[in-house]
């Protein structure tokens, strides 16, 4: 399949995802057709922002996953692995715990982005400016563990069951709270993050041949690393800020699409962003359809239930292929 046809096919999938996100799962279609104001309100103020948030957050996760897999030269890499997701989660939970969320509207997103940025900075401090990819992976695992421990500590000390459940539900990840505010927050951050990642696509191609070869081809690997970390922090942090922790999209999507770009790391970023957008949006619609009255299924739980077995299968096949 040519690159253009792949992009067109993915755009088509996004349109299907967008339409089903708008009109599936209990939308009062007949009322809307009859020109009912309430139905129009549901569409304009609930369905549309939810659709956009899903697409934007998914694009950030998919694109970041592809860039990280290219940078680490490892199909098991995922935004979660560099500790950025956990950092963003810790930031948001801190805001919830200390009640900043009630003080001003942007507290949780701002704290999530701050957490993602701090996680990325800590990662660079531990790994050092000239760290090899392996060191960076191990540092990412360490940063993630630290952030998760701090999050657990805050939950441990949470003053009342309501605060605890608020944190726990938030960590499960969902688009239930998506409004135009969430779109306004996520869109610029994730677009900027994806742009930073896309700048590096040639460097990622060259990295397929190893760090020495890439450096000999004139790529400044220190700069590449900074841009990849910053781009991931924005693309993932922006998503966690509005939707909580939604895992495995960044792992699954690049893996499914890699064969369509002849395994070229740089060319995988854009299709993965589009694929991530469609997948997250479709997954959100599916969880809404499956959720019963008063029994909401959380999006992050659904993607984890689907993603974890996929991850296991990937580890098995990777282990079998390795020498």
């Amino acid at each position, binding site marked *: 399949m040519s690159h253009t046809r792949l992009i067109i096919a993915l755009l088509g999938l996004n349109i299907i995802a967008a339409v089903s996100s708008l009109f599936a799962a209990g939308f009062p279609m007949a009322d809307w057709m009859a020109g009912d104001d309430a139905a129009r309100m549901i569409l304009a103020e609930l369905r549309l922002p939810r659709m956009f948030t899903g697409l934007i957050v998914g694009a950030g996760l998919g694109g970041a996953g592809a860039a990280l897999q290219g940078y680490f*030269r490892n199909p098991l890499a995922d935004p979660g692995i560099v500790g950025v997701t956990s950092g963003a989660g810790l930031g948001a939970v801190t805001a919830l715990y200390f009640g900043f969320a009630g003080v001003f509207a942007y507290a949780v997103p701002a704290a999530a982005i701050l957490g993602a940025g701090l996680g990325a900075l800590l990662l660079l401090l531990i790994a050092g400016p000239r760290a090899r990819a392996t060191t960076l992976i191990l540092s990412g695992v360490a940063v993630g563990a630290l952030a998760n421990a701090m999050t657990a500590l805050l939950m441990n000390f949470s003053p009342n069951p309501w605060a605890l459940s608020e944190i726990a539900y938030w960590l499960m990840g969902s688009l239930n709270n998506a409004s135009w505010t969430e779109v306004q927050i996520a869109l610029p951050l994730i677009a900027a993050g994806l742009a930073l990642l896309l700048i590096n696509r*040639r460097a990622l*191609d*060259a*990295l*397929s*041949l*190893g760090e*020495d*070869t890439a*450096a*000999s*081809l*004139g*790529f*400044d690997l220190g700069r590449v690393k900074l841009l990849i970390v910053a781009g991931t922090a924005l693309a993932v942090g922006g998503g966690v800020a509005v939707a909580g922790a939604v895992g495995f999209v960044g792992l699954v999507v690049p893996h499914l699409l*890699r064969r369509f770009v*002849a*395994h*070229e*790391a740089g060319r995988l970023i854009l299709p993965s962003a589009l694929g991530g957008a469609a997948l997250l949006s479709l997954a959100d619609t599916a969880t809404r359809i499956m959720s019963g009255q008063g029994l909401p299924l959380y999006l992050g739980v659904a993607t984890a239930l689907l993603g974890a077995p996929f991850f296991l299968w990937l580890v098995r096949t990777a282990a079998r292929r390795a020498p």
Partner: protein
Amino acid sequence: MTVLETRLLNAGYGSTPIVSDVSLEFKGGQFIALAGPNGSGKSTLLKALAGLLRPQSGQICLDGKSLRDTVPGERAKHMAYMPPDGGSVWPLVAKRIVALGRAPHLKPLRDLSPDDEVAIASALDRAGVSHLAERSIDTLSSGEKARVMLARTLATGAKILLLDEPTAALDPRHQLAVMETLQAEVMRGTLVIIAAHTLDLVARYCDSVVLLGDGCVIAQGPPKAVLTESNMVELFGAAPPGGVSGTQWKIR
């Protein structure tokens, strides 16, 4: 003509030097081999020459200009480097791997130009792997893979080729093919420097050998004068009687 020289070069990892006080001069049209036991500093010297390792002290000059003052993107047009047992992490198509050699010449946001396409086709041809262009790298034998990697190095169009053990792990026919491809490049005026253990190939193809022992230059000159029995015994603790002679193998 291209001139690559080192002046009292010290290079290594951290603060301990692996090669010390190396002063050498190489010119375009020369086929140079760096020889010596494992750990004698061949790879380190090659990496320093390629600009991948910052000198601890001393200088490396390309056409009289210090390598330190040359930006990486510019350096990459003049020098191509091939790491030992290089490969690709992803199962890329051979032609796309060779195309990566054009990276230093690409303009931002532009795809391969007709000039690039010509350079890629020519590199595939010179390395003798045109027939493998559309194959995925993971379906090739190690010999074919090594020659695709060589084509990638040639596609850069650099006047200096630095190759770390380009014949390692290859069967005799692929070894000869690689050396002959490199010799043809030397004929075109390219400076080719290889780190090598295959001394019978070095004796046959190379103009000059730099013999390294413990990071210092022990001897330098034509293979016959350098790869002598006494030098070999001193460095390797093993030697062919009468010194290393060139391989008699021929491709048929």
